[in-house]
């Protein structure tokens, strides 16, 4: 067993275990020590990832169930970084929560689920990762047991998730049935003679299962509810991290399928357009910023799927996928970070005059939203540029046009929040949560600017990188 390839995941497991034990034996007032512990774990895992990335070569490991390639490394680092920001957003919000310490353990396990999905080169591992991410996700969404909204969010998440998980498992079983193996590498070889209807059904079911974690049609309905009802730091995490794992996992699985038999590109393209359009239209008239962010997360999943459509047909597809994930993660974390720092204030009207009362938070919100729109020189611009280039290059110019139209629509609802924040009179007082949540949001916003300006190094080494197996 070549353990050294999966040291980052092992580090996260150990860290999560330590955090849970510490939470058990620490007084409530001291539970915050788990936040630095979690950050330490994430930093260690990131260090190991970088070490493997620099010193190792792309390969599949653990009986070919695990792909360790540049895409896995990039996804791991993005997941670890996004989780770190989510950790920083939490301590002040959960200060009075009786289960404050355990929160970080669940967070780490959920991140582990996303990492498993991203590296999965075997359908069983994909299932494992998805289930781990889902179950911990339900817990995080319903973390405020006393809040009806939080429990409702968790419940809706669970119901949609249960169905989606069943779809995924059924699809995996069907795929196993026609190929006789769970590993991608062997499955790819066995697919040529497989029965086409069964194969198409299996792929569709698996796509639906992953669309759940992705927040894409047809399993997207939990996204706005979780964004609105879950504890704000948990919402920041849940709208971002599982999506990273699911998108990479889906890309890896679909790229092994023989195209003449399974026309998955058009399927994904249609899902992409429907997802971005529905998300945008639903976001248009939301009067609740968190719900608006939830729907915007749905529409962003649609943009992300554009990269998958181009995989194999354009060498910009992989860089597009990764830059999109980084840009999306930072922007969403920054936007939710502002919500957390504003103590969860959520009606659009509550943001009137924010620029005068809290200029820095307003600036973070502007950076986050404009990056989601794709205004240069923010990271979101580089992501959209790569996505458009990849899809046009792959011969899906109509998909790029649909994305352009959607981008214009999306500007409208982002400006519904930003406009009054800058033009309206300042409200009496705008209380904030504390220093750490503000730092978390600020770091994410600074990241958006840095990634945009230094876009070169970010996607270096990903161009034409192999997507294993």
């Amino acid at each position, binding site marked *: 067993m070549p353990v050294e390839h999966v040291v980052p995941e092992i580090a996260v497991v150990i860290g999560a275990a330590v955090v849970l034990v510490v939470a058990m034996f620490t007084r409530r007032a001291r539970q915050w020590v788990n936040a630095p512990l979690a950050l330490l774990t994430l930093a260690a895992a990131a260090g190991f990832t970088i070490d493997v990335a620099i010193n190792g070569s792309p390969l599949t490991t653990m009986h070919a169930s695990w792909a360790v390639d540049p895409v896995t490394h990039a996804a791991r680092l993005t997941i670890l970084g996004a989780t770190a920001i989510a950790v920083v957003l939490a301590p002040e919000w959960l200060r009075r929560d009786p289960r404050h310490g355990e929160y970080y353990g669940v967070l780490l396990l959920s991140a582990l689920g996303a990492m498993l999905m991203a590296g999965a080169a075997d359908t069983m591992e994909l299932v494992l990762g998805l289930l781990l991410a889902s179950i911990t996700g339900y817990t995080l969404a319903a973390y405020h047991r006393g809040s009806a909204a939080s429990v409702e969010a968790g419940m809706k998440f669970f119901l949609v998730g249960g169905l989606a998980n069943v779809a995924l498992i059924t699809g995996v079983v069907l795929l196993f049935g026609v190929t006789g193996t769970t590993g991608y590498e062997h499955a790819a070889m066995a697919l040529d003679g497989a029965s086409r209807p069964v194969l198409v059904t299996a792929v569709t079911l698996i796509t639906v299962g992953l669309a759940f974690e992705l927040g894409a049609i047809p399993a997207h309905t939990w996204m706005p509810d979780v964004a609105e009802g879950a504890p704000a730091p948990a919402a920041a995490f849940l709208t971002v991290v599982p999506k990273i794992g699911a998108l990479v996992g889906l890309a890896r699985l679909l790229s092994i399928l023989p195209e003449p038999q399974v026309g998955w590109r058009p399927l994904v393209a249609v899902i992409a357009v429907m997802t971005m359009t529905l998300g945008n239209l639903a976001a248009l008239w939301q009067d609740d910023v968190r719900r608006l962010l939830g729907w915007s997360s749905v529409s962003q999943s649609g943009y992300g799927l554009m990269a998958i459509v181009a995989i194999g047909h354009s060498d910009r597809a992989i860089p597009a996928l990764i830059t999109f994930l980084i840009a999306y993660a930072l922007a969403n974390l920054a936007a939710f970070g502002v919500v957390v720092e504003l103590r969860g204030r959520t009606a659009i009207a509550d943001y009137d005059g924010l620029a005068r009362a809290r200029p820095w938070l307003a600036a973070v919100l502007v950076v986050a939203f404009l990056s989601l729109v794709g205004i240069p020189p923010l990271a979101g611009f*580089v992501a959209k540029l790569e996505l458009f280039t990849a899809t046009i290059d792959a011969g899906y110019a109509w998909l790029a046009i649909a994305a352009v139209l959607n981008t214009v629509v999306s500007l*409208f609802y982002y400006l519904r929040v930003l406009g009054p924040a800058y033009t309206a009179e300042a409200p009496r007082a705008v209380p904030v949560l504390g220093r750490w949540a503000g730092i978390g949001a600020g770091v994410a916003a600074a990241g958006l600017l840095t990634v945009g300006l230094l*876009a070169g190094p970010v996607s270096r080494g990903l161009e034409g990188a192999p997507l294993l197996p």
Partner: protein
Amino acid sequence: MLTAAVLVPLVGAIALALWPRASERTARGVGVVTTLVPLVLLIVTWGRFEAGASDPFQLVERIEWIPQLGASFAFGVDGIGLAVAATAALLFVVAVVYPADTRGRPRQYVAWFLFLDAVSLGLFLTVDLLLFYVFFDLSLVGMYFLISSWGHGDPKRAALKFFLYTLAGSLVMLLGVLAIYLGTEPRTFDMAEVIAQQPLAGEATRAGLALLALMIGLGIKSPVVPFHTWLPPAHVDAPGPASTILAGVLLKMGTFGMIRLPYAMLRDSFQRWAFVIAVVAVISIVYGALVAFGQRDLKRRIAYTSVNHMGYTVLGVAAAGALIGGDEAARELALTGATVEMVAHGLITGALFLIAGSFWQRGGEYDLDAYGGLAGQAPKLAGATTIAAFASLGLPGLAGFVAEFHVFVGTFSVFPVLAAVGLLGILITAALFLQVLQELFLGDLPDRWRGFPDLVPREVSALGVLLALTVLIGVWPGWLLDVVRDGTAWLVGS
């Protein structure tokens, strides 16, 4: 040095944004200094510029940005870029100096102007296709905040419409840019390289679609009919100096982009469609003039004359691109005219919008019917308005004439009928400006304007610079034409 011209205003903007205690005086001081620096740098560049050099772009400075995509932070000049950038730099100095109500937030007000200054100069000076798009897009952000925060009337709605409409345009343009980029081999965003390669040259359909995307995007920004509907509300509700920048600088991004991108990079395709583009331009000229004549609101009227004037520019570009490989002299005249029109329109309409801003500061309205007989009450204002109006209607001896003369002489040998129809526009513009002068300054002075103050020294000096240059270009255009011709010569292939 060109990089510094872009960076200095940006640094000024950031400094003001982070300087909580800056007073109106300090803010304006920082503004004037950081807008003067690029102007001085561009004047020095004008001196260093070599006419007849072999490379299209001179004094190129380059830092890598996304090497995998072949994109870099690269700046350089040709004659056209230099002329337009210098005009923009001058207009920003004037706009920052000019009095306007800053609503208690002078710091942010000046900071957004400086941001726009950096973005505009970046756009006119960049020689990287991707960076061009970046600046094109960023200009929307700056103008959105200026209109929505310091506008009057219904500024939020006007700003929103402006942002949505022009973002749609710029994204459509992005698709065109990417189509060109994907046609290059090896892939690059370097403008000189792209122009040399002429990507998509053999593929009529793809090149046609790329051209369409670019022309829609740039046409919205210019604006040409039928993409002009965002313009009047944005202009009317923006503060005076912001209108000056919008008309004098931001609209140029559209026409300048037409010369830089579709004209230079998709020559075959541009030639094939030049007649259609010229027809659209003539429609803009006549329709813009007619609608302007119908307006009773001073600022709306000036706004619609911008549609008319940008039509001249587009007509010149279309005529220049019509027949690649023949009649170079006429086409060069047309393209030179188009460029001079950009400079002239920047100066003249910039001045007119500042004057409109002065009316708003004093009277609080733009309705032509409300004013009258001000010639005796405010002689300096009347004088400045008269010069600007005459320049705008193309009176010989002023800059507008030089530009329009070149455009029409060039166009006559390519599209004689269209040129004849386009002349109608000049006639209507003349009528509508004479009417403006008559209604504002002649007739009876209404009682409420008995105390109407004349221009203050700051206004006189700002308008004086713009109008002096208008006259200078009118009577001695040689210094400008030499530089501009150097840019147009290689574009018409002579």
